[in-house]
């Protein structure tokens, strides 16, 4: 009887993990979310060097938990040059005039937040 209960518990646990992990894995496709998808601690940001030498570079993010998050623009050395506070699932097309800037995402909130963040060249892939 104990073995049966253990087996049932194990199957239930595996099913629960699969149920939670499946949507997370689908949402966290790093071939799409090129800056990454991960938990951001308060004041944590991640960027990626721009892909185009000129023209537009786009940042796209989704997040939850909080109402706000930020897209950021930094110099090549990481000094911030600008930031845009925008709703989740927004495509923001930067045109900064430099060739080695970085773009990415930043958590401005007081708590940890899951952020999917993507950067790509151009602005047409929305």
């Amino acid at each position, binding site marked *: 009887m104990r073995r049966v209960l253990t087996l049932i518990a194990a199957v239930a646990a595996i099913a629960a993990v699969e149920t939670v992990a499946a949507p997370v894995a689908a949402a966290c496709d790093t071939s799409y979310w090129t800056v990454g998808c991960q938990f951001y601690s308060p*004041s944590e*940001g991640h960027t990626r060097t721009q892909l185009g030498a000129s023209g*537009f570079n786009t940042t796209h993010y989704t997040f939850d938990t909080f*109402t*706000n998050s*930020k897209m*950021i*623009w930094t110099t090549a050395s990481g*000094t*911030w*040059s*600008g*930031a*845009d*506070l*925008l*709703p*989740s*699932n*927004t*495509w*923001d*097309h*930067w*045109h*900064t005039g430099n060739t080695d800037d970085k773009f990415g995402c*930043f958590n*401005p*909130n*007081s708590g940890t937040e899951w952020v999917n963040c993507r950067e790509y060249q151009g*602005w*047409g892939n*929305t």
Partner: protein
Amino acid sequence: MSKRWRISALAGVTVGVAAAVAPFFLPGSAGARGRSELVAFRMASIPAVFKDGIASSARSAGIPASTLVEVAPAGQPIAKAGLVVGRGPSGDMVSFFTAHSFTSFRGVADAPQGEELTIGASIQPDANGDTGHVQLLGIAAPDVTKATLDLRNGATLTVQLVKAGSAGYSFFTYVSDDRASFPAVAHVYDSTGSERQSRDLTLALAAPK
């Protein structure tokens, strides 16, 4: 009444009126902040690289150019930031733009994601790396009739709500290059005076460093 007296009186009235209304039209002045104007997109003073991008994004979204309007901070010869609203195949759509970027159009009802107050903002650093410039862009739900900003200096400013599109949403802008007048909290109210939502902006507008 002598001619000299009439000229003096007229000059006095002119100076008085000019002094009274000037704050509402001077760029960046306390009076101009929080006031917005509605401009046909083809007439909008948006930097060409972004105006072209916004126009192209609108075409991609199926928005006729004739429906596009800009909500911009009043009194600025070249808009640092604003919103562009147009009528897409499935309803009103909106794009935010700043001095360095613009966003793809999305549904006006989609962007707020159920919230009464949606805030977009762009910030840039001062010489010390702190937030030195703020451009705030707001979308308020159809039942909102008033929006105010609590500023860091303790003042409360009622910002002008501008209706655009046909979905009933209204929009506002606020720009500041002065830390004392950066917004700290935004509030929106309905016609009964009840607060519908507020948003603390202190962390949101802090430097990302």
